[in-house]
């Protein structure tokens, strides 16, 4: 009998899944060892989008980091802007005005909506549900229209400044937002009808990519993927920044951390984020949007045009950069994928001495082999979509 068994041995097939593969969109490579269609082993190779973000930041002034942060998680750039600004403000020890906080919250949540919509939609797309994808892309375009109205660009926002914002909310923003949300909710319910109870979709995502809560924490999961495991951890609640403690919203949590939970958590978070934006718009106070600390701000145009001292000072701050006191700081915000942390070290000069980013999707990507071993090759698709690995953020 052993003779037959020897003859009937199976050979493993090693496949390069990516970087130029539809599911890895050029930013990651899976080295998959297959037995038939079952994954025996999976190695993740990242680094296809490495730009040297951290080093680039250290070569520019504190201000010049902002355009680079746009490109971390390029689907929710405003959260990255806010995260970096908050970290620098914590380093300096300034507190931004109330109105600024509210506007930042609005900007963050709009970004989060766009991020989750893109993620859920792309997840559907790669499972073949093209129509659901385009419904959410339509909604996302509407949200991006709002962001464009606010910042002047859809993706490369560069909106937040140290100690404030580039500009205030434009006229008619509130009304436009409410209109957009109305349409978004319609599209949300359409996608919900197309996917949430569709058995084909449920079969594909349920019980795939499960993660026990302990292991998820051990891996360093944060954000929707951790909440899907049943851990109610959200930086906005656990460690409220800006004015999140004044907002009334719920933290959706799942149970087993499979892809279906991640999907449901994200769908629910879209709703919660819309609620937050509406509340913030309702409570929005008047007043300034920037701190009145000229040393940490680029000078206003009025001052530059009319006052020679301001002009000189302007030259000084632009060329030398603002100079936070020496020290180090870590500050995390809740980005679309989870805890986006900035660890900054200042040596008192105009440039960051060290600018380290804790990308939320790096631990998630690292857990791919754990989630995928023994599953089918088709399961890579929803799992990889639902951890929402963004090359710009993961590789930096």
């Amino acid at each position: 009998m052993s003779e037959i068994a020897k003859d009937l041995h199976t050979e493993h097939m090693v496949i390069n899944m990516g970087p130029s593969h539809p599911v890895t969109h050029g930013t990651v490579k899976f080295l998959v060892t297959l037995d038939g269609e079952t994954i025996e082993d999976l190695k993740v190779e990242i680094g296809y989008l490495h730009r040297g973000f951290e080093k680039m930041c250290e070569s520019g002034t504190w201000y010049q980091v902002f355009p680079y942060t746009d490109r971390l998680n390029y689907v929710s750039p405003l959260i990255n802007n806010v995260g970096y600004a908050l970290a620098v403000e914590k380093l300096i020890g300034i507190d931004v005005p109330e109105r600024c906080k509210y506007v930042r919250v609005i900007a963050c949540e709009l970004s989060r909506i766009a991020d989750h919509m893109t993620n859920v939609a792309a997840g559907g797309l790669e499972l073949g549900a093209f129509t659901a994808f385009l419904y959410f892309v339509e909604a996302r375009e509407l949200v991006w229209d709002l962001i464009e109205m606010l910042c002047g660009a859809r993706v490369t926002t560069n909106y937040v400044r140290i100690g404030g914002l580039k500009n205030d909310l434009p006229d008619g923003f509130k009304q436009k937002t409410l209109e957009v949300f109305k349409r978004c909710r319609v599209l949300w319910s359409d996608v919900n009808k197309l996917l949430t109870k569709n058995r084909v979709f449920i079969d594909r995502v349920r019980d795939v990519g499960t993660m026990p809560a302990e292991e998820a924490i051990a891996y360093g999961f944060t954000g929707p993927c951790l909440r899907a495991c049943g851990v109610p951890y959200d930086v906005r609640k656990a460690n409220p920044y800006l004015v999140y403690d004044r907002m009334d919203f719920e933290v959706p949590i799942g149970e087993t951390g499979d892809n279906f939970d991640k999907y449901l958590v994200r769908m629910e978070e879209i709703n919660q984020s819309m609620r937050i934006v509406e509340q913030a718009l309702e409570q929005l106070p008047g007043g300034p949007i920037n701190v009145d600390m000229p040393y940490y701000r680029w000078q206003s145009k009025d001052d530059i045009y009319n006052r020679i001292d301001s002009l000189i000072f302007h030259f000084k701050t632009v060329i030398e950069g603002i100079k936070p006191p020496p020290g180090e700081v870590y500050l995390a915000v809740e980005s679309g994928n989870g805890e986006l942390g900035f660890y900054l070290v200042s040596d008192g000069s105009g440039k960051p001495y060290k600018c380290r980013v804790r990308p939320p999707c790096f631990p998630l990507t690292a857990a791919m082999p754990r989630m995928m071993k023994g599953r089918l090759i088709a399961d890579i698709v929803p799992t990889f979509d639902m951890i929402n690995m963004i090359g710009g953020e993961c590789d930096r």
Partner: protein
Amino acid sequence: MQLLMFYLLGLGAVVAALIMVTNKRPVRAAMSLIATMSFLAGLYVLLDAHLIAALQLIVYAGAIMVLFLFVIMLLNIEEKEGRLAGSALLWQMIAIAVVGLVFVLMVSVVKLSDNVVPLGEAAALFGTTRAVGKMLFTEYLLPFEIASVLLLAAIVGAVILAKRRIDDSDQ
């Protein structure tokens, strides 16, 4: 017209069968076998046996041969270039001679019994689904059922073979 078709199809079947036997590349051999099956189906059509022709295509060409191909592809059999040994060649020649003899015999038997009675009234229904079905479920019911038992035995055997392999790998 019909005769011409017969010769064309027959020639095709024979040539494809020869290719099947002589070709050393398994996939090509399998494909030639499929071609043979298809030509045979054509011959059945000429005989007015449409049902048998369709079944030939569905069962043999469509289902069984796909499995053959499947297996060949999965096993990734190397194309062997080795030559037949002398004694094997001799045996082959003998085998071909015997088969040829049998063929000649069969043809002559058919030729001799050429003046069999025409099919008569049954001819109108010959080869139709209804006729074949009736035959199958009345006259030939027992052989039909026995054949299915044979298939069942084959399935059980296959399962046992596959099962034992798993046991071995467990140990």
